[in-house]
């Protein structure tokens, strides 16, 4: 017990007093989670029913604009906030900036008359849209399409009202014609591999992605400590104290499992509490604590085994830092950390399965996004544990061959 306590204490102190390690393990992922969750919010929100706020100014005195406003209020992706009809364009712009709203819709004075007039008689466009330049074109297009759709429907309905006597004479029910408002297009996401799939929000993608990335980044401090111990003769001293090779490895694994666990708690905490504070959506944790622990442990085990393998191969800390850093970045780029897997083309999605970070990320998404149970991340966990075990065996074989350890 005393041995374990002082071994844990030693490793924690070594990490806590290493500014670079603290930066890599805690500061870097925290900053990435914040930046990515906020910067990519709108991009990810395109896939969700999260409302985008729009200021609405109705300058039209006719009844068609009221009908139009009622219709667009039903749009699931947008939330309209009415402003005073006399508000000047300049004031609307100020309101957009002060409220952090990206769009403002102005229904012009000629709206009702332009609806009631037939096609070809329009002089001025009846709707004006003010857009914050930071909004991406896709989001803008979504709103424009939605408004155009509602406008077309309103024009259609007005036309049907105007020919109502003829429709009655022909035995056609006008209300039946009007009812076909909902989209007739059914959308299904097709995901490589055929498993059930939901698009994550920015925070649901960022937290597990950068958590997995940072957990794997322990390869740098861990392998550096191990190589320093070997170079300084500390491992020889420990071996002369009858500390077995297995105990040496366990003495590294257990403290770093704790450090990874602390990373997981801190990063999830940032996703749940800090990101919403800055205007992002809060991370939802799913319902399986057991599943969360299982996938976090598996990622940690695999990362530690990789670190020990690198430490046994590299001769200097510089070599370990280079090998570890490069491997992590490749695993991250490939594994959907930097670029989400669902936006990758098919062959890249296949290729991403080679990265253990991709397994870890999918495991976390099973819990956070798909409300999975403890058994859901089991395939990913098993893959990580098997790979970690294989790397650990290789490490022991390599260490046996080295006379220093």
């Amino acid at each position, binding site marked *: 017990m005393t041995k374990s306590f002082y071994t844990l204490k030693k490793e924690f102190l070594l990490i806590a007093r290493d500014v670079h390690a603290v930066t890599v393990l805690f500061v870097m992922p925290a900053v990435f989670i914040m930046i990515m969750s906020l910067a990519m919010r709108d991009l990810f929100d395109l896939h969700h029913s999260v409302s985008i706020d729009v200021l609405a100014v109705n300058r039209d005195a006719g009844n068609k604009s009221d009908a139009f406003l009622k219709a667009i209020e039903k749009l699931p992706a947008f939330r309209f906030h009415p402003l005073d009809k006399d508000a000047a364009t300049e004031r609307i712009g100020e309101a957009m900036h002060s409220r952090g709203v990206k769009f403002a819709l102005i229904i012009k004075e000629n709206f009702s008359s332009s609806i009631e007039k037939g096609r070809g008689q329009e002089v001025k466009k009846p709707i004006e849209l003010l857009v914050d330049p930071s909004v991406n074109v896709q989001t803008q297009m979504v709103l424009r399409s939605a408004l155009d759709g509602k406008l077309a429907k309103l024009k259609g309905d007005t036309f049907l009202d105007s020919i109502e006597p003829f429709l009655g004479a022909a035995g056609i029910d006008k209300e039946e014609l009007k009812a076909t408002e909902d989209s007739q297009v059914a959308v299904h996401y097709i995901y490589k591999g055929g498993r059930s799939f939901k698009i994550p929000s920015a925070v649901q993608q960022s937290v597990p992605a950068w958590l997995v990335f940072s957990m794997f980044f322990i390869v740098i401090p861990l392998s550096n400590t191990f190589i320093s111990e070997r170079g300084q003769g*500390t491992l020889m001293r420990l071996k002369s104290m009858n500390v077995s090779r297995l105990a040496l490895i366990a003495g590294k694994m257990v403290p770093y499992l704790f450090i990874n666990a602390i990373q997981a708690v801190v990063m999830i905490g940032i996703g749940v509490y800090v990101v919403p504070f800055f205007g992002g959506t809060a991370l939802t944790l799913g319902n399986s604590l057991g599943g969360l622990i299982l996938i976090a442990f598996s990622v940690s085990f695999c990362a530690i085994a990789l670190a020990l393998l690198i430490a046994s191969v590299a001769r200097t800390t510089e070599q370990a830092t280079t090998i570890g850093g490069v491997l992590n970045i490749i695993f991250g780029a490939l594994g959907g950390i930097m670029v989400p897997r669902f936006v990758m083309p098919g062959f890249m999605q296949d290729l991403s399965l080679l990265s253990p970070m991709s397994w870890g990320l999918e495991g976390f998404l099973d819990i956070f996004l798909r409300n999975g149970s403890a058994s859901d991340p089991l395939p990913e966990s098993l893959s990580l544990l098997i790979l970690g075990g294989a790397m650990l065996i290789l490490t022991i074989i390599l260490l046996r061959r080295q006379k220093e350890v």
Partner: protein
Amino acid sequence: MRPFRNLVICYGAPLIKIEHLCKSYDRKIVLDDVNLSVRRGSIMGLLGPNGAGKTTLISILTGVIGMDSGKITVGGFDLGRDPGSIQALCSYVPQTLAFYTRLSARENLEYFGSLWGLKGKKLKERMGFCIDAGSLQAFVGKRVDTFSGGMKRRLNLAIGLLNEPEILYLDEPTVGVDAQSRNYILETIRKINRERKTTIIYTSHYMDEIEQVSDEIAVIDEGRIILHEEKQTILTHANAVLLGAGQRGVEAVKTLQPREGIRIEKERIHIERDERFSENMAAVFAVFRDRGVRVDDMVSGHRTLEEFFLRLTNDRLRDEN
């Protein structure tokens, strides 16, 4: 309970016995049929040029690496069969600074002490002893990376004393330290040996250190023990009287050659202080008298251990590969 404590202490009996020890790396022979025994309670200086096999020998004795063949017994335990029991008796202080520089001296001592199975009051007691032994009282809470070279060396030694070892292996414990720290370390080593009867195996490149602290000296070269004697015996052998009597003196002494105990080196006549010393001195002075040679100077020469060592190992450079 440590079984070694039950043995009858008999100073002078071999505590470590090495028989026909061989070790090679990648087909290169590093230790070749090494035979050596170390008396209980003695300080043995282990000398050897770079790459001679000193560190390999100590690494095998401390159980860090295995041997290819041979037999080593320590305190009656067979290293091949019971390395754990032997390791419990020993402590190894490597020539590198084998501790954690981002920790304080206290945190290092706590960690290594806990690995020896020390805890609670006993751990504190041993730490206190080691802090005193290393004269680290004023710096014990400070991070080691702020220490001077001498303080780091003292901490390296202090960690090696945590388990009250019966046998202490010191691999160049004074490398790179100032004269004060060096003197302190040597004093501490002598004190530990004197007060606790700890057997010490000591390697160093500083011959004066070896001469100062050792009771016995072993010289290893190219993987073989080429000399193992009591220090006093070696130094006695090394003693000689040097006579300067010019070319005529040299010619006169040549008439006595070959004669054991008399050598001619660069117009100087060396007469070894051995059992034939008086007889040789008389013979030399007799031949001088007969030939009318005058003695210009006479020095009671003391060949240093270093000179002796260089002669023994053939002077040539040994670059490790």
